[in-house]
């Protein structure tokens, strides 16, 4: 029935005539920023044009897999190039295992529309650097911080600088969390989603404060290792008040997972 085989087809078909929405938005974008900048954009003129389209760079996700500090700067530069290409259209950025205050400063200066920022194990980013950047990111709705050193004061400043914040994830291996959780309750009353992963909390007071002071909260997830159980009444209250409530004790030190 078929008059052509896949082999014949590839002889005659010009794949560069495919609509940009497939080649760019659906295929090349999925390769990720590093692969696009290092490889895909060099394939031909058409792909280079597609790869320069700011629409390709609204979402940027870059992970540095090998934590070898001598190549950190390469990832930092690649990330800047990716942000540069977004021409201010960036709405969502995740970086992992690299990044400095300088990079964060660059992102914040170029990306006034940013609504989601995710920093995972960016050990060189300081609370001060983060806060300086967040001053310019007033549209931020989602913030995820893993293994970034965050003090109580930092959280208060974040709450002040990001009045639209709806979703906050904090993951560290600090021993005690109570202060931070209180600060979140005090300074982020608009939160809808809060996820806390860490070592332990001394008391349940922080969780009580979150319940009282964040009336819009729809989901609350707490994962602790070496932690007591929650007070029974408090756990019941959480389940009643919050659509999605998860409390889990892992027993495995975070970071070894």
């Amino acid at each position, binding site marked *: 029935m078929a008059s052509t085989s896949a082999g014949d087809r590839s002889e005659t078909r*010009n*794949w560069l005539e*495919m*609509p940009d929405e497939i080649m760019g938005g*659906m295929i*090349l974008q999925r390769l990720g920023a590093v*692969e696009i900048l290092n490889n*895909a954009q060099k394939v*031909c003129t058409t792909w280079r044009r597609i790869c320069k389209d700011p629409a390709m760079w609204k979402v940027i996700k870059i992970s540095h897999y090998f934590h070898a500090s001598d190549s950190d700067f390469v990832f930092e530069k690649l990330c800047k190039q990716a942000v540069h290409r977004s021409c201010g259209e960036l709405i969502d950025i995740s970086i992992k295992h690299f990044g400095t205050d300088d990079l964060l400063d660059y992102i914040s200066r170029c990306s006034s529309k940013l609504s989601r920022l995710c920093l995972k194990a960016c050990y060189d980013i300081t609370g001060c650097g983060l806060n300086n950047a967040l001053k310019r990111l007033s549209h931020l709705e989602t913030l995820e911080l893993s293994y970034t050193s965050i003090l109580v004061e930092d959280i208060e400043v974040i709450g002040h600088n990001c009045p639209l914040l709806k979703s906050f994830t904090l993951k560290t291996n600090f021993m005690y969390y109570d202060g931070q959780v209180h600060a979140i309750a005090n300074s982020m009353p608009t939160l809808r989603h809060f996820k806390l992963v860490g070592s332990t909390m001394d008391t349940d007071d922080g969780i009580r404060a979150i319940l009282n002071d964040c009336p819009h909260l729809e989901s609350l997830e707490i994962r602790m290792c070496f932690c007591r159980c929650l007070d029974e009444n408090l756990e019941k209250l959480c389940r009643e008040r919050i659509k999605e409530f998860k409390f889990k004790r892992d027993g495995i030190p975070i970071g070894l997972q």
Partner: protein
Amino acid sequence: MSKKTLTLMSKDKQLFNIEEHLAVQSVTIRNMVKEDGASSVIPLPRVDSETLALVIEYLNRQQAPEEDEDYVKKFVDERGEIPTLLELAQAALDLDIKKLMDAACMKVADLIKDFTLEEVREALRIENDRTPEEEKAIRDEFQWAF
């Protein structure tokens, strides 16, 4: 009551029948049916018969909803050649079948992810048409970055 059947025509004028309730998984066809009943043959000028046969096979699947994701993935996995997948993606775009388009594009991205520049060019029969000016622009860009 017999189920209503639609006829789709490929670029190379082959005709394919498919039951209407299955065909309307394609948003394009659904809209046509809504507008004029789509009683006549529906022409698909950019889809060849081989690809249309695959699309029909996909639309005719009898999967439980919870197994559908796995089915779509397997469906494109079994047609792992890049030209076939790109034809499928184009057809799924024209017919507006989102799940199939996503899966086909994702598979292509997976396949070319680890290719070298030359391998990408070979797989897609793309010529390196970069001019010396562009070569320089790429170098300068990274100069700027570094």
